[in-house]
């Protein structure tokens, strides 16, 4: 067999190996998404434990804590988990003001492991509240939150960004 032919076959086998590896990574990535997302207990936000202590007269005492749980039952590590929350306050019926904007990074979650953590902003961290005397007591202010979640998966070959918008709540 000619040396050129051996070289050609070696390159072909190498390319085949790369293609098969990528196909397996793509397939396992899809299977992981199905494994994680089809079971609601794998991604949980304990709404009963969410803390939002709003103190217009003492902004430094305003606190936010959102506990969450993610169980990575997939085949790859979940990397670069970043959660951002911004809150808009609607007061005096028509005035809208963004009172909170913060992004927190969380540890990577290896395959088969879980993470129980919380998004915290204590002692006014990230808050920009209006002056208390500018807020009419009635009607009660309304709060609307935008939540974004970013992470990388499948050996960082894909990334996803989830954005939950305009979820209104009261303290």
């Amino acid at each position: 067999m000619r040396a050129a032919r051996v070289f050609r076959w070696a390159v072909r086998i190498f390319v085949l190996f790369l293609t098969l590896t990528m196909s397996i990574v793509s397939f396992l990535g899809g299977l992981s998404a199905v494994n994680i997302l089809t079971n609601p207990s794998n991604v949980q936000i304990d709404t009963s434990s969410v803390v939002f202590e709003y103190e217009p007269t003492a902004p430094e005492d305003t606190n936010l804590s959102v506990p969450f749980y993610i169980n990575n039952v997939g085949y790859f590590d979940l990397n670069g988990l970043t959660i951002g929350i911004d809150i808009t306050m609607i007061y005096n019926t028509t005035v809208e003001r963004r009172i909170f904007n913060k992004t927190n990074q969380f540890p990577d979650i290896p395959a088969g492991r879980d993470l129980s953590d919380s998004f915290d902003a204590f002692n006014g961290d990230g808050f920009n509240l209006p002056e208390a005397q500018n807020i009419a007591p009635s009607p009660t202010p309304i709060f609307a939150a935008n939540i974004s979640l970013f992470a990388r998966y499948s050996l960082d070959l894909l990334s996803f960004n989830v954005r939950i918008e305009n979820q209104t709540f009261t303290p």
Partner: protein
Amino acid sequence: MGAGKNLLKGFIFMIFYVGFTIILPFLTFSYINTLQIMGIDFGLAQESYDRIIYWIVAFGCLISGTAFFTYSSPKQSIRKGVFALVQIILNCLYLWSYKFSGATDVNFEIIGYGHMTINLQQMILVYMGIYFLTIAIKIYDLIDFTINRDKIREKRWSE
């Protein structure tokens, strides 16, 4: 191998490529178009779904057609080399079509809540790297088939 067998081989590979480049992606995008996760409906924007399907079908037809000519051509022929190279270049365009059809940034609407974006650009770029190596092999094959044309013909006739 006789002409009949070559045609059959070309037809079988064409069917394989139709399945792999048109039917499988079509079914995948149709499935995720009406996805429900944890009781929440997900949906692709109709405009982006139509655009993705259009490019997948357009390039899928071209690749499948070229696959027929590649695999029905005689072994080590210049025709086979040319069609194999064209097929790989079309495969690159097919992958790239995922980018300009918007399929590398798959946007889902989480109905009533917001939206989700999955970015597949890195994965597509890695595939493009692998295809670059394949193009190099196909160009080498084509040059080899052209330079050694007489030897290959002699060998084919003596079989």
